[in-house]
């Protein structure tokens, strides 16, 4: 499809083929951005040992900052910088820049030598590249959503923009797939030594393809029309946040929709995995498979709910997703926990087996792994793994490192898939219609700037803090139980209060203040 053919077409005449090319170009880029973003989180444990040794306090500080900063703090700044650029220069070129920045920095992380080779420079470079990733991600989503919405025909924005909404989930899914495939084909030891670089380096191929696709696209028809008429905003930031008329809509978008959407999104897609791995101790591959299957099965619902929101309105679907989360999170997580709770299961003590394996490591030390297998009713297996490193033959041994993993039987595995699937359906309800909702809230001349900020504060900050605040709440409840046993009945469920309360406030504000009909602006 040629750029010439697309140039400045009024939206009513845009054919379906052009529209799907626009969606593909936007979705592929956004998918890659999310892929790039997730692999860092998924490989956090390996990366911290490669770049951030714990015995160095400065490196440890940089590690913590890299996790926090790029995860959510810089995203709103990216939204401001690239949103402004998008409203001044255009959607197409702005989100081309964000793609290059994101892909380039991910590829570069895969090339950085470890702390053992370049010392302090390793964590510093990783932190810098993570900041660039966060900035780029802050600019990408608003551009893609705006670009597709401005091509979409009247009354079908929810359906067409919902394809963009699938990309975050697909990005997570692809990143899990690539990591698992690389890990399985290379083996755990090689993957930990150098194989973790492969998912980072692979991203450059995906980015290359995406750049070619995006370069062939034309500017959005609504932006081109404004430009031709000379109606572009001269200062989108001042217009978005300096004028009460727009600022009040920014606040409504944040407290009536995106904050709740953010916590529901992070609970369903991130906290669920973390809970299954840390609270339930389910084995790495099995826990990732549970989340991956649930994500894959639920992803089409983004389009279902996006399309449905064109007919019945964005508000009832988004708020229903929040309400369902508020009402069912505690029973869902309680059930998840009970499926792996060994205290509720009968062990076949006679069947217990012990495996011992010793491997010589590259530095000459000897790694001894002792695995005790416990067999329980229903086919559940619990493994107690004890790792000890001996510096040299006959030398001093390290303190044993103990881990517990659980392998679920088939029935419990699929029940966990169902419980995560239900949560991801809630995610699709709040997230499917949100791009169209935000696009319709603001006029074309300041849309990129205005919609990007509430989205990234809601999703990035309110949502991004979910795992940290939830973990802190669980730790506080566990500590309280240690001081006064039984004072908190189920401490592992305490982390859910954060998403429940944020979504609760957002639900009330949404019910009271949001209109169900699309917001219309003078230009649209």
């Amino acid at each position: 499809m040629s750029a010439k053919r697309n140039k400045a077409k009024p939206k009513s005449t845009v054919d379906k083929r052009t529209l799907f090319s626009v969606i593909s170009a936007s979705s592929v880029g956004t998918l890659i951005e999310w892929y790039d973003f997730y692999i860092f989180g998924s490989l956090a444990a390996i990366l911290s040992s490669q770049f951030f040794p714990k015995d160095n306090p400065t490196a440890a500080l940089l590690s913590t900052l890299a996790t926090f900063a790029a995860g959510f703090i810089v995203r709103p700044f990216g939204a401001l910088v690239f949103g402004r650029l998008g409203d001044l220069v255009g959607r197409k070129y702005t989100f081309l820049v964000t793609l290059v920045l994101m892909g380039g920095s991910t590829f570069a992380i895969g090339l950085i030598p470890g702390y053992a080779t370049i010392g302090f420079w390793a964590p510093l470079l990783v932190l810098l590249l993570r900041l660039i990733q966060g900035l780029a991600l802050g600019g990408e989503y608003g551009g893609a959503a705006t670009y597709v919405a401005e091509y979409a025909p009247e009354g079908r924005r929810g359906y067409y923009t919902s394809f963009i909404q699938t990309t975050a989930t697909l990005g997570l899914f692809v990143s899990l797939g690539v990591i698992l495939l690389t890990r399985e084909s290379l083996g755990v030891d090689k993957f930990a030594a150098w194989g973790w670089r492969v998912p980072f380096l692979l991203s450059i191929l995906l980015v290359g393809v995406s750049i070619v696709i995006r370069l062939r696209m034309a500017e959005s028809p609504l932006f081109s029309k404004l430009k031709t008429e000379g109606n572009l905003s001269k200062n989108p930031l001042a217009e978005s946040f300096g004028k009460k008329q727009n600022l009040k809509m920014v606040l409504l978008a944040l407290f009536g929709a995106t904050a709740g959407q953010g916590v529901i999104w992070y609970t369903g897609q991130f906290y669920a995995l973390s809970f299954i791995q840390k609270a339930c101790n389910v084995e790495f591959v099995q826990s990732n498979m549970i989340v991956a299957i649930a994500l894959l099965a639920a992803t089409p619902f983004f389009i279902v709910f996006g399309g449905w929101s064109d007919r019945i309105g964005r508000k009832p679907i988004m708020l229903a997703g929040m309400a369902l989360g508020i009402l069912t999170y505690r029973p869902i997580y309680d059930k998840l926990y009970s499926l792996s709770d060994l205290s509720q299961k009968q062990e076949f003590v006679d069947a217990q087996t012990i495996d011992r394996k010793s491997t010589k490591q590259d530095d000459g030390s000897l790694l001894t792994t002792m695995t005790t297998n416990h067999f329980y009713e229903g086919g559940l297996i619990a493994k107690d793994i004890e790792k000890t490193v001996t510096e040299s033959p006959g030398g001093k041994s390290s303190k044993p490192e103990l881990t517990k993993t659980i392998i679920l039987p088939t029935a419990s595995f699929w029940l966990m898939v169902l419980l995560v699937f239900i949560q991801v359906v809630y995610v699709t309800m709040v997230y499917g219609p949100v791009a169209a909702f935000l696009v319709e809230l603001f006029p074309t001349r300041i849309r990129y700037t205005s919609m990007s900020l509430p989205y990234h504060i809601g999703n990035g900050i309110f949502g991004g803090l979910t795992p940290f605040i939830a973990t802190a709440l669980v730790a506080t409840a566990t500590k309280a139980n240690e001081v006064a046993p039984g004072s908190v009945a189920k401490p592992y469920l305490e982390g859910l209060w954060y998403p429940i309360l944020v979504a609760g406030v957002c639900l009330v504000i949404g019910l009271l203040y949001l209109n169900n009909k699309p917001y219309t602006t003078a230009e649209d």
Partner: protein
Amino acid sequence: MELLKKYFGIVWILLGVYVGYERITDSLTKISSDKLEDRVFGWVILCVLVPIVVGGLILFGKYALNGEYKSNE
């Protein structure tokens, strides 16, 4: 309904003030912790989340109280 939307503005202002008080005291405890993760977390809450929640909710409540969110349906 319009009246309810208006008077709920007071609730959002009070909620902003309460969250501010509660989060600031909690963050200060975290900032004085021995653990690095807790200290960084405390600063993040204090410098990022608190201003957004407090400032945002108070401003939102003020606009609601002034009747800025009248329905156009």
